[in-house]
């Protein structure tokens, strides 16, 4: 349909190119170096897929950038799940790179990450199964030509990896459409008296968020058909500080915030507070804490710091200070006005007050909570 050159150009100008295009070079180098057995219709061997996600250096010197920074185990279990022909469910709180991992897995396994169903509260069954071209349907009656296959159906027919984003946002009855697909590996089309059988290589990656409110829990029938991998929050404070500062930097630039010099100390403090409250224990492991009801994800830490930067840049003296982040932290921690406020005050009084060099932060938080 399109001239190849035009297509390539369109890709390079895309705001956000697909993983398989952005990292086409790495995938190619991996495929060339990969001499291990590949499951049918896989573009790479499981080992190469894991390497693609975790990064490494190939024998020919090509450097594979790490796509996922986290425990090796997570990626290995995820890839192995796909290789054993089980559907993969990636669980985790917001901001743990679920979608990112799923996209790259699909790109590495099938070379195509676009067979995607975005789950919302209004996702209909047709989005997962198939729809109809109504003009044809009315003119000629039901036929294969009038059928509009959904992404999952296309993946089944071609032996590709389909993706379902935010599975738990989809209404429960629509979710259950997946049961037949995953257990029988077939999609019946009763209107035509036919079915589409999945060919080898078909698999499905779903992502879901287990902490947020307003989700539809998976039925146990559906859950049984998935292997579950929970993507953890960053393991060490250093990782998290790193992630937060990098993201804050990107967001700050895209919002044209005036640049604020060196807020690393404050970022470290925000991350420490978030981690301690989230884990229910202080970083030195000596004191246990109550945890508030909010998720306190890395994503929220990022938004606290971004908000603080905006405050510092527009209303403060241009340096990120404790006062700039205090209100943001309070808002993130105290979700339930009664219980969380107590948790927060207890934290302030028993942990923050005693900590060396945190006096300014303690004061700012006391002012913010008053």
């Amino acid at each position, binding site marked *: 349909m399109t001239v190849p050159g035009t297509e390539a150009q369109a890709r390079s100008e895309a705001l956000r190119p697909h993983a398989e295009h952005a990292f086409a070079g790495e995938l190619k180098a991996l495929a060339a170096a990969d001499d291990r057995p590949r499951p049918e219709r896989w573009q790479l061997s499981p080992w190469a897929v894991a390497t693609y996600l975790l990064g490494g250096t190939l024998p020919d010197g090509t450097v594979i950038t790490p796509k996922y920074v986290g425990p090796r185990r997570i990626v290995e279990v995820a890839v192995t799940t796909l290789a054993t022909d089980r559907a993969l469910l990636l669980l985790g709180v917001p901001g743990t790179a679920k979608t990112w991992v799923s996209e790259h897995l699909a790109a590495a396994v099938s070379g195509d990450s676009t067979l995607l169903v975005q789950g919302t509260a209004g996702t209909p069954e047709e989005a997962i199964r198939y729809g109809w071209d109504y003009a044809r349907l009315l003119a000629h009656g039901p036929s294969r030509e009038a059928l509009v296959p959904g992404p999952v159906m296309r993946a089944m027919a071609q032996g590709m990896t389909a993706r379902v984003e935010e599975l738990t946002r989809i209404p429960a009855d629509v979710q259950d459409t997946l049961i037949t697909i995953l257990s029988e590996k077939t999609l019946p089309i009763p209107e035509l008296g036919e079915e589409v059988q999945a060919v080898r290589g078909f698999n499905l990656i779903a992502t879901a968020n287990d902490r947020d409110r307003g989700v539809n829990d998976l039925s146990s029938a559906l859950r*049984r058909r998935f292997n*579950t991998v929970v993507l953890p929050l960053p393991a060490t404070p250093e990782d998290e500080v790193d992630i937060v500062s990098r993201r804050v930097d990107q967001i700050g630039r895209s919002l044209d915030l005036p640049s604020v010099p060196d807020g690393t100390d404050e970022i470290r403090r925000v991350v420490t507070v978030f981690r301690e409250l989230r884990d229910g224990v202080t970083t030195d492991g000596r004191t246990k804490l109550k945890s508030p009801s909010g998720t306190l994800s890395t994503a929220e830490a990022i938004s606290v710091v971004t908000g603080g930067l905006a405050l510092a840049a527009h209303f403060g003296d241009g340096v990120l200070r404790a006062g700039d982040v205090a209100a943001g932290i309070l808002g993130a921690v105290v979700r339930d006005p009664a219980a969380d406020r107590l948790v927060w*005050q207890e934290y302030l009084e028993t942990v923050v007050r005693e900590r060396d060099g945190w006096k300014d932060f303690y004061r700012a938080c006391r002012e913010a909570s008053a």
Partner: protein
Amino acid sequence: MTGPGAGPFLLGIRHHGPGSARAVRAALEQCRPAAVLIEGPPEADAIVHLADEEGMRPPVALLAHAADDPGRAAFWPLAEFSPEWVAIRWALAHGVPVRFIDLPATHTLALSDGGGARSGPEPDGSDGPRADAPADTDAAAAPYAAPRLDPLAALAAAAGYDDPELWWEDAVEHRRGADGGDALAPFAALAEAMAELRTAFGDGDGPDGARDLVREACMRLKIRDARRRFGDGIAVVCGAWHVPALTAKRTVTADRQALKGLPKVKTELSWVPWTHRRLSRNSGYGAGIDAPGWYGHLFHAPDRPLERWLTKVARLLRDEDFPVSSAHVIEAVRLAGTLAALRGRPLAGLTETTDAVRAVMCDGSDVPLALVRDRLVVGNVLGEVPDTAPATPLQRDLARLQRSLRLKPEADARDWEFDLRKDNDAARSRLLHRLRLLGVDWGEPVRSRGGTGTFRESWRLTWEPELAVRVAEASAWGTTVLTAATARAEARAAGTAALADVTALAEHCLLADLPGALPTVMRALADRAALDTDVAHLAEALPALVRSVRYGDVRRTDTAALGEVAEGLAERVFVGLPAACAGLDADAAATMRGLVDEVHQAVRLLAPEPGPGMEAAGSAPEAGAGPEPEPAPEGRGGPRGGAAPEEPGLRHRWAAVLGVLAGRDGLPGGIRGRAVRLLLDDGLLPDGRAARLMGHALSAATEPAEAAAWIEGFLGSGGPGGMLLVHDERLLALVDDWLTGVPAAAFAGVLPLLRRTFSSFDQGTRRAVGQQIRRSGPEAAGTASGGRAERETGALLDEERAAAVLPTLHLLLGMAHTGGS
């Protein structure tokens, strides 16, 4: 290196390695040795026959301890899958003599004493730490301690493994010997590898290495002896690391020389029951292996270990009401197998199966996984030893203490009075408290008949025969009463959920003088306190804890940690108290008022220095007046800097909390009144502030019942509350003012409350108050407000009385009722 038939057969193993154990069994079956020599203390030769007795169930440990000091002990734990155990059992079953060939425990214990913290040697190409010492470190003799450099790591790195344990698993433990092959071949290969390693790393330098050389010299001598007695066909089971040294050519003289002049200590050996938990590293005992349950499974499973293991896991989860079907097991087996292939391992190990269980059976959650780890991977297997085993050191230690403290076990109940100021009595008390912690209820504390001083304790002692059994059971906790009680207290601290129980335990630890257990108990206490959301619980726990701090002082125990925890507890009470006081009914409010009192006392005991509290006296009540609670005491200093004490003291913060309580509307009157009173007593209310608060509480806008409750809280029941009215005219006037202003309808309602309050004052006080009111007129010049109040009071009373007689008076005088004044 040693072909079949040309013994001695050197079987290098890893302690607690199921693969090694299986290989040892196969090798013994093949060589049929005339004697089995095992790395272990030779003193154990005398009791090794017990291993074959009916009552013996692994895991058990060989225990060597100094005869006069049971605290100095070393353990050689043996699980069912330990190669040494397998060898012992094989030998006993086939009537083959067993000899232990390591350095005698008499030297090991003596050496461990001299070297201080120097622990044992053993880079034995194996699991590292194997024996452990009881909780107290001063008594540690660890014949198998962590190697200072890990030869295995070198081997593993050569094989491309990051984790030496993992490599050993793959190379040795997970390998199932090919049937019909030479059972000795793997040992020969291993010995060669170790020989290479020893060449590379040296036979041993530094103190550990020197100790190793001595031990190996000893082993060589013993092997020589055994060969003379039993011929060449003997088998030697020892850590793989030692194998090359045992074949080395050394002269008998040189070896004898190495053993010359070693220090000695009289030792006794026994078998003690052991547990899987103590075999595992996470128990803190460092016996050496992560997953005794998994190893046990590998050792016992006749075939398909992966499938059997996952079926076990599924059963466990099912029993705990997790829906796990056979389909799950199938998928988990597939996942684990494929994962192993992806990671390039020959067989799915514990990591792969755990990953598979998590992803397939547990929905990615670690919660059920923790259960699997606890019950299966570690397992709660408890060993048993036959009754014929020699007495445990704990029993000996107890007997020794009974002798030295002149406290004989007697079957008849006998009462004792201990004066804790005397050393002997204090020691007796400690012993009884410790025994109680161990579940040996020999003594029972009874209420003292004499004085109630803290230095006096009364006990009733009865020795029941079954207490001996209890002592034997308690032997698993340690070798002396002290160490056992410490270990037991620590275990209980970890297992107790309720805050009050942990507080009681802390008190018990102080009574029993177990400073070793205190840090753990304190930690547990701090953790429980942090997670307990009920302020009332915290407030209840605080006084007991503070008492413990003081009691500790009496006994000269170090209670710094205790004080720290108590302060933390107080902080949490401070934060939560205002919220916890809201919305209480009358009974709950009365209870809470009591708690406020107790916390107040506790804070005074805890932070006796009045420094910062007094200095900042002004700020607390002011904050209380504000609509929002936070007194923000740190606001006073202005921007940071300056040498002023930045940290307001505990007392000051408590005063701030009381200020909040005193000033916040909507809290029960009794609590508010109490708070004002406590502040007033401590001199923390500025002039007129108490009167203003009382004025608020007693003003017309307040429900009379609420106001009466306030007065009850303020004056308290009993005590010097009444005298306050006698001495502070303004307060008396306020009360008086309010009382006379109460409408008649409401008066009946507040009367019982008031009566309850006032009747508790002694008669003198009541009379004084009455006189004060009567005298109010002449002294009205005292203060402006008081004077006015009393004048008004006087006028009102007169008017009422006057009003009552007026109609009669009018009638008598024949005047028209005109009214007016």
